[in-house]
């Protein structure tokens, strides 16, 4: 029972990371109708930026953090201009392939610069964690969960209660109508990419002290986050968060009770099970093409 509680805590912590990346997926999907396959690489690049600033250069953690996020905003903008924007009038297949190309480019550029050796990033806090009854609460996991909760609330407030948020929503629902109402669609898409890159980067920085900082962390996180969006219901914000948490918990329990080497395989099994039995996910995807 104690072990189960401990696993539940860890599962929620890691699930929160998937949820953050999944949120980035969903936001871009809703704005552009395209799945960004480089979303996971945003997390990886941000983690490496932290290593550069905080470890190699020895700058203060908070400053490195801010610089890394600023770097991610820049990367999101470049990504939009270089990968998505030139293809915006093409069908989804070329765009998907281009984002896959971008994901390969990002991962291997970092590999070429930094080499294959995984890097270590310290956590934000000096205290490793606190013992609460039978459960040991790791401070980094606590931070991840707290940040995720704050971000979810922020996300809700931003999209429902600010003008910019409403404009973004309008863009994602009907681009033509939005542009007729005087909303600059290309600006909205730019903001979406920047916001998603920062979200993905935040997830990467938060999870880096828990995992190693490695080239593979991007694709691993992206696969989990994508599975999370399908479990939750594609394109649904609440679904992405719940799917991410569920996946983190399933995976942690699977690794503890079934098999450690195949830990990364559980996400795939859950994904295929959902695709076969409930492809619309928990909350349901709105898919219908007009004839």
């Amino acid at each position, binding site marked *: 029972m104690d072990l189960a509680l401990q696993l539940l805590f860890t599962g929620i912590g890691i699930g929160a990371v998937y949820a953050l990346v999944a949120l980035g997926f969903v936001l871009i999907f809703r704005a552009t109708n395209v799945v960004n396959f480089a979303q996971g690489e945003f997390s990886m690049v941000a983690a490496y930026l932290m290593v550069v600033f905080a470890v190699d250069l020895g700058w203060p953690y908070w400053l490195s953090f801010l610089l890394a996020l600023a770097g991610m905003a820049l990367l999101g903008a470049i990504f939009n201009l270089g990968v998505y924007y030139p293809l915006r009038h093409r069908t989804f297949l070329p765009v998907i392939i281009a984002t896959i190309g971008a994901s390969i480019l990002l991962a*291997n550029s970092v590999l*070429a610069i930094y080499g294959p050796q995984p890097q270590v990033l310290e956590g934000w806090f000096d205290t490793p964690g606190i013992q609460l009854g039978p459960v040991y609460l790791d401070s980094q996991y606590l931070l991840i969960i707290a940040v995720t909760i704050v971000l979810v609330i922020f996300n809700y407030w931003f999209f429902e209660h600010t003008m910019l948020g409403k404009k973004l929503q309008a863009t994602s629902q009907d681009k033509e109508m939005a542009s007729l109402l005087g909303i600059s669609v290309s600006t909205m898409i730019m903001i979406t990419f920047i916001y998603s890159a920062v979200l993905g980067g935040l997830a990467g920085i938060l999870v880096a002290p828990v995992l190693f900082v490695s080239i593979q962390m991007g694709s691993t996180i992206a696969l989990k986050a994508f599975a999370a969006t399908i479990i939750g219901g594609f394109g649904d914000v609440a679904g992405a968060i719940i799917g991410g948490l569920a996946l983190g918990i399933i995976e942690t329990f699977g690794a503890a009770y079934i098999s450690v080497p195949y830990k990364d395989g559980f996400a795939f099994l859950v994904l295929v099970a959902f*695709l076969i039995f409930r492809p619309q996910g928990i909350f349901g995807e709105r898919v219908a093409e007009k004839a």
Partner: protein
Amino acid sequence: MSAPSDNMPIAVSAPRTRPLLLRHLPYFIGAAVLVALAATMQFDGYILNILMEATTFAIAVFGLSVVLGLCGQINLAQAAFFGLGAYAVGIGTSDYHLSYWFCIAGGCILALLAGALLGMSTLRLGGHYLAMVTISFQQIVTLVMINTIWLTHGPDGVSNIGRPDLFTSAQSYLAFCVAMLALVGYAVWHLSDTRLGRAMRAVRDNELAAGVVGIDVFRTKVSAFALSAVLGGLAGGLFAGGFAYVSPDQFSFAESVVFLTMSLLGGVASPIGSAIGTGLLILIPEWLRFLKSVPGLYLAIYGLSVILIIRYMPDGIWGFVNLATARWRAKARVHAAGLALLLKPATIGGNIVLEVKGLAKYFGGLKAVDDVDIEVRRGGVHALIGPNGSGKTTTLNVLSGLYKATAGRVILDGTDVTDMPPHQRAAAGLGRTFQNIRLFRSMTALENVVIGAERPGNTLLGNGGDALTERAMSALTFVGLGVRANELISSFSYGHQRLIEIARALAANPTLLLLDEPAAGLNSSEKMELHELLKRIAAQGLTILIIDHDMTLVSEAAQHITVLNFGRRIADGESMAVLRHPDVVSAYLGTD
């Protein structure tokens, strides 16, 4: 999956086989010369390895040209299928001393099953699902190769892999691989002109229209995906025999990316492009060996190349060459104008061709169509009219199976089609056109109409591929576009594209033709032509159900009119009487 398609004459292209082979004799002579060269020329070991790699990789990339090029579905796990074939041959011949032939067949079957299962679980959904699921599958296969040490020897890999007794020397084995490459290349090259290949291209160009003309979209996609997987497995089996050693890192996601880049660079739509791309991406890294000294650098360049190719050269090198040389190549000959189009609508049921009872379609709380009855009598033109938003197009979409009815029955010529998917309704005799034209845009007018003529259950097709082309030609001639049969869709005006869509539906010899606002966007002379065309169609006894706003057209062409308003039927009967009906007048003009 679909029983009605079994009625189709199978050997469609049988009588053409001999002249086709004769015409392609140069290909086989060229292939034989290559095989002979591979078998006899003196290579050093380094060159031999490069040739072996190029040959086996090209077969795997052919697989991508089927699934991605022809069918428009993505496969990011080609290296995994390649690996399944390679490990089957590796483990089978080395650890269990099984026959090479048995192992390579086993590897192909393994890849086929994996591909079919993966496809069946995912291909009903959008393309992004397939991309992610194939990446996941790729990761799983790599995990299994590394971790099931008792079977795969883990990271150490499998060595001492055997070759068939016939080809034990590296040189003769290479010749064998080149021969396999030539055979597979021939098959892939001709796939696009077979029934299955046309179906794949139709699905790639327009899924909705493909279903409506009678193509089982899901089965076509699964076939393409499974075929691609088999080619991957075959290539992997050949590869394992060639190098006698395999290890998990040869079949990683990075390798899938390499395959994808090869395919995109050469030109994804054609096997020639695949071969060019494969050759280049094997040779270039050999010339630029220094790039490999920095891990990641050459893959980073591949990633960048993918982005640049997609943006600036979407059809690859071969597509670019094709375009550049198009004006020097002889224009394809125009087929002799077909015989006069014969329409012979099936008459199984009684006097009523289409019977709709209590039909309803709700979108959430919105009742788009509510409790509508329609009876379309055989051999006439029946119009379905109503103001904007009255539910006409929704009704048509429910009738053709694009939407599932919330309630009610649809009976077509005595067959209850309510629960059938679109392609089975087409097989049962339903043809339709779309308000926003849905043609297969990468194909010629003739190819579009040929796909229509191929409708399962089309009783007017004789045997053989020529009959198919003839039927399509006569349908095109019937709408007045016979002389432009070999032009691409994009070169036709809007009005002519509409006519091609009608020809596509007519070539199928349907029992009932649904026309969704055929006059929309046409100018007045085109409308006159359309009216004439409708008369000529009706004269052959084909029943038409037409939706349109053009009251002149409707009142002149239709004998019977059903009027919808707010999703409900408000009038039904003989044309003139219905148009004078007070409810109809007020629905259109409003009341005081």
